[in-house]
């Protein structure tokens, strides 16, 4: 399966949920904002959302300080 993450093409093996992808990428699901195909995905939906071929993800990861 091919997905695009912040404009970069990535190949994923098998059936992956958004939560699993975040874990694979080493990202804390409490510290990201995610859009999938131009729609925001709420945190509570990360584990239920299975990715599909050609999905386009925008992921913003936050570190502290302001």
């Amino acid at each position, binding site marked *: 399966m091919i997905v695009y993450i912040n404009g970069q093409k990535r190949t994923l093996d098998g059936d992956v949920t958004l939560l699993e992808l975040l874990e694979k990428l080493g990202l804390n699901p*409490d510290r990201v904002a995610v*859009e999938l195909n131009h729609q925001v995905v709420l945190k509570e939906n990360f584990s239920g959302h299975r990715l599909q071929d050609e999905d386009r993800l925008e992921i913003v990861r936050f*570190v502290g*300080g*302001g």
Partner: protein
Amino acid sequence: MNCSSYRSLLAKKSVGIAGLGGLGSSVAVSLARSGIGRLVLADFDVVELSNLYRQHYFEEQVGQLKVKATEQNLRRISSNISVCSHPVRLDQSNIPGIFADTDVIIEALDDPEEKAKFVTCCLASFPETPIIAASGIAGLDSGDKITIKRVGDRIYLVGDDVTAQDSHNLLWPARVGIAANHQAHIAVRILLGLES
């Protein structure tokens, strides 16, 4: 366009700022100086002495609500600026109301989980509004590493992406100021139609 036409345009615009710490207090000043007509400010906190190391407040303002101190400072720059102040902790129940009718939203919070929740809530509540967020502004690494990333159609992320505030990486006023002015400048560019 000349300066006065730019300023007339900006005078009709409204910018929301979530958080009035090192980033937000400085973004507010730059936007006020640029001639933005209306600022919506949200921060529950009060000014403390240590805030003066990097936040745009003054000694006599210690103890005041940051929204009030910021409004005071902005009125010294532009006496007829419109300021809506919300001395509250932001959450899903109040974000949609507070930031409604803003043309651009600036995320200037400090906690990474609050940043994520805020940006997610804005993306959900305001499908057309650009959001200018920040991540990674602490420490003494080069200011050149504070970059601007465009994420998707309407998220801008300012920062070096990695340097979190902690006991080793403090917030230094100039580095934070670089990030704050990147945020303010992007806002001005968006409002003047210079960002595609």
